[in-house]
């Protein structure tokens, strides 16, 4: 054994970089190498970059591993680096004031990280790091010791279902594609926005999974379909791909087995519809991304009419683990029919924002209060939106429901690719639903009538309601439209587009009615329905609101109660936020 080294791990995911991680890493390198720290402590000291570890709201996170004990610092800024190096690395005294708090431990302790496990631990730009944690062993085992059918049997045994949206059995998809005759087949990995941390933290797992998938279905070529705009993900995957190629894991005669497999990038562009697999294929072929009519399913006729399997990056990341540890191991995690774990970006008004991986079936309460640490500012939880824009809205009465495919389907939602947004009492459900519809209407490809016209009409009606012009008949029209769209749209986008409305209308009917009957927005969000005024008894005539108002709508003088002119008010809420005495009324 060589002399133990001191490791300094700096989080450089999208969020770590945004918080200034590059500069922090540069300074660590500077102090360690140029200030001669290694000479002084007599051993090697390696500052390296790692991928996202999920606790993004406290970035930049830095680990210092000294004599086997790990200390994690939070909110590290460049000017903290020198002291950490001096006191901790050289003198061996961790700086307790800067280390992570208890919530870091509770945030992580309740998760079950199998896919995200290596993210934040290994250097994503080093294939040796990945190999050191048994990387590419599963691919070697699959390709040299197992037949494609055996690989598929293992995946079937695991019960893995697609992590991209529909939740179709991965093994079954592969089995069908393998059974279709043909010399040319394709394997495609879709890397969506929630998969970015995987691509940035452990890109080799995606490549290894795709390689195994390609072997199993008998494909000679794989595509990494990713949006160009995800610069860092593209960069990390390119490096990983190049390294895998150099080692001979990708290319001709892999592991001396005679199996050839090439992987290339296909750069998508920002279009939500590309998450739909047939639309994605149209996009790879260079056309407008409009979904195809099915059947034939992609497993029979996909890219350029050839049998094709499409899975997303999270699904593929699970594959090396399933082949390596066995399908039975994987099937031991989760519920009876939803196996394994699911990665989510936990965001919105929850205290601990970040990337989480939970075993299927975990109750929402545990996710929001256990992992998420509750609601920011101790406000009241209102609802949870899960599954992306076309997912459903889960009310607080369902907090004890487990998160898995069956439960979510039962309440009209989907697991989706893994977005979870938490709303508090300050969020207006109607306005949120309108926001989702606005997005879906813009992203509707326009091929089929129910989706093209349905999303447009739904958006118009919801806008009418948030503008304070709604009628009760509009709600019935919305319900009817929802039903038609869900049952007649060509693809998943149109079929799930009414989900936010349907699920929220069931549980927040009163809020919709308040907008229509009382012309009030209970949460105080819809600008057409709120007014700002000064509560005379509370006004201290300090003038803060007057200075904050961008429209010059506040008048007043020292020692004189201020007044807001409703005709000039633009309802931006600046006065409301500026007032220290809660003397501005919003209603």
């Amino acid at each position, binding site marked *: 054994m060589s002399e133990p080294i001191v490791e300094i791990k700096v989080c450089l995911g*999208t969020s770590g970089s945004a918080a200034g991680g590059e500069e922090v890493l540069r300074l660590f390198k500077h102090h360690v190498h140029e200030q001669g720290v290694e000479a002084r402590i007599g051993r090697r000291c390696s500052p390296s970059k790692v991928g996202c570890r999920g606790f993004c709201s406290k970035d930049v996170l830095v680990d210092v591993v000294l004599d086997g004990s790990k200390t994690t610092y939070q909110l590290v800024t460049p000017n903290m680096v020198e002291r950490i190096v001096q006191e901790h690395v050289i003198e061996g005294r961790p700086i307790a004031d800067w280390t992570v708090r208890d919530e870091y431990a509770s945030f992580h302790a309740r998760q079950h990280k199998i896919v995200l496990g290596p993210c934040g631990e290994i250097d994503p730009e080093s294939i040796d790091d990945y190999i050191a944690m048994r990387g590419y062993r599963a691919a070697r085992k699959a390709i040299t010791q197992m037949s494609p059918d055996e690989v598929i049997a293992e995946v079937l045994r695991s019960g893995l279902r697609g992590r991209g949206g529909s939740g179709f059995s991965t093994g079954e998809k592969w089995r069908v594609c393998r059974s279709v005759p043909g010399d040319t087949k394709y394997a495609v990995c879709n890397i969506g926005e929630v998969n970015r941390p995987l691509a940035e933290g452990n890109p080799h797992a995606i490549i290894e999974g795709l390689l195994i998938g390609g072997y199993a279905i008998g494909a000679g070529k794989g595509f990494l379909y990713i949006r160009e705009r995800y610069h860092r993900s593209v960069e990390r995957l390119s490096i990983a791909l190049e390294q895998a190629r150099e080692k001979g894991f990708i290319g001709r005669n892999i592991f001396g087995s005679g199996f050839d497999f090439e992987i290339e990038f296909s750069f998508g562009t920002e279009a939500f519809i590309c998450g739909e697999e047939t639309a994605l294929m149209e996009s790879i072929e260079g056309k407008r991304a409009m979904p195809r009519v099915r059947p034939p399913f992609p497993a029979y006729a996909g890219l350029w009419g050839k049998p094709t399997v499409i899975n997303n990056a999270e699904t593929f990341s699970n594959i090396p683990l399933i082949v390596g540890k066995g399908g039975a191991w994987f099937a031991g995690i989760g519920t009876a029919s939803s196996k394994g774990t699911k990665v989510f970006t936990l*965001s919105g008004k929850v205290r601990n924002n970040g990337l989480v991986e939970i075993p299927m079936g975990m109750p929402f309460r545990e996710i929001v209060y256990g992992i998420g640490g509750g609601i920011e500012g101790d406000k009241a939880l209102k609802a949870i939106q899960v599954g992306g824009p076309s997912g459903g809205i889960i009310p607080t009465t369902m907090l004890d429901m487990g998160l898995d495919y069956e439960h979510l389907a039962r309440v009209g939602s989907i697991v989706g690719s893994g977005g979870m947004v938490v709303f508090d009492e300050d969020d207006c459900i109607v306005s949120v639903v309108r926001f989702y519809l606005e997005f879906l209407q813009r992203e509707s490809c326009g091929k089929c009538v129910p989706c093209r016209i349905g999303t447009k009409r739904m958006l118009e009606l919801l806008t009418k309601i948030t503008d304070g012009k709604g009628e009760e008949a509009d709600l019935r029209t919305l319900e009817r439209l929802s039903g038609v769209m869900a049952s007649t749209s060509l693809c998943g986008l149109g079929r799930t587009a009414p989900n936010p409305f349907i699920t929220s209308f069931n549980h927040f009917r009163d809020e919709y009615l308040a907008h229509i009957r009382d012309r009030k927005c209970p949460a105080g969000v819809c600008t057409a329905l709120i007014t700002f005024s000064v509560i005379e008894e509370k006004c201290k005539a300090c003038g803060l609101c007057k200075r904050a108002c961008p429209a010059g709508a506040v008048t007043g003088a020292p020692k004189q109660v201020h007044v807001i002119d409703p005709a000039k008010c633009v309802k931006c809420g600046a006065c409301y936020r500026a007032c220290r005495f809660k003397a501005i009324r919003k209603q």
Partner: protein
Amino acid sequence: MNEATERVLNRLLDQHRREQGNLIVLLQRIQDTFGHIAEEYVDWFAEKLDIPASRFFGVITFYPKFRTRPVGKNTITVCCGAACHIKGADKLLDAAKEALGLTGDEDTTRDLSFTLQKATCIGACSIAPVVILNKQVHSAMDPVKVTKLVKGYEREEFLGYL
């Protein structure tokens, strides 16, 4: 169209034919080279490749990232995904517009120094709301920070020329 432009287009055409590439890749290259896809470039390629110009425009108008108008030297993108939305992305958009002096549906400053874009979710939800200036992601933004970011960047650029 001047000779230099035509030379560049010819090079793109050769590459496209050699690789038997598809329309999206070709359009991406045109945009990477010129910053936008002018109508005359499309007409030129349509003739050379014997593909109707309408098919090009079909692809161009389908994907929001393709643009037919010139792009600014710097790009500022406001993420308008759900997580950013409930944390006030539209206010960031207004602040950026005001700081850049854009009105109506203008997305680029007259001097072509800035282009303002909206993004759907970029997957950085846990640090919402985010703004991307060129390739750098800025987290937990508010209108004041956006204004500073834009103004500060303008000043730095200016200092760069001194």
